[in-house]
């Protein structure tokens, strides 16, 4: 059942790749943001998988339990990363809204066309 232990890693890689594809290749800015979200979520899963210790329980001190615990460090780290990610999302969405207001569209190719007009004018 070795492959089962690797499932989280496969999921993480798949999510990252899907997300990266979305962030880079999609023309719609909102879809790009969604892609970024997937991308980062993949990384969260990776970190959480890192923390697993065979037979470990949640790292809460209890009477009469000497361990093992899962490593709390990646959890703490990824909590921070989640906050960062949420902030990024927030800034990204705010930008998308501003773009929609200024250009009337959030499609990358239309934006590029509008920007090109601006340069020539």
């Amino acid at each position, binding site marked *: 059942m070795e492959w089962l232990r690797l499932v989280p890693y496969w999921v993480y890689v798949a999510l990252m790749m899907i997300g990266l594809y979305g962030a880079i290749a999609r023309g719609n800015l909102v879809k790009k943001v969604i892609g970024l979200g997937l991308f980062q979520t993949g990384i969260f899963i990776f970190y959480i998988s890192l923390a697993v210790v065979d037979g470990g329980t*949640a790292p*809460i001190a209890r009477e009469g339990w000497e361990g093992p615990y899962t490593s709390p460090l990646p959890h703490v780290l990824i*909590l921070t990363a989640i*906050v960062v990610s*949420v902030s990024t999302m*927030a800034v990204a*969405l*705010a930008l998308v*809204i501003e773009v929609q207001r200024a250009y009337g569209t959030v499609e990358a190719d239309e934006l590029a066309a509008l920007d090109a007009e601006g340069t020539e004018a």
Partner: protein
Amino acid sequence: MNAERRPLEEQVVVRKTAKLLIPFVVVFGVYMVTHGEIGPGGGFQGGVVIAAAYFLHALVHGLAEVQRVIPRRVTDALAALGVLLYAGVGVAALLRGGRFLEYAALGAPGDVVASRALGMTLVELGVGVTVAATMITIFNEVVDDGEH
């Protein structure tokens, strides 16, 4: 926008459930914030939960209503205040002769456990306030289309 929201507010079940739920959500959030020092929880999670109460209220009663209850000025200020609290704890430790964020220097000398508990609780409180306020600000920014 309002046309979509009104039916939600008129639905008695939704309104009553929300009314029932919101206090508990807030209390649970505060519990998570303050409990973070010894168990699962902490400022991040608790802050989000508290913010969720705000969202629920906004969904049911509309943005204008919830912003009347908690104006945007307040949330903006709270976001900065929370971080200030966090940093202030660090500086307080500095001023009391410890390292930056060295909780042991906070309380009565010698009582390291209590000092640490105090420091962590304050820091988590700061984090919780900031996270809640920030989530609310994000929500406001995204939902509040074209108001300024």
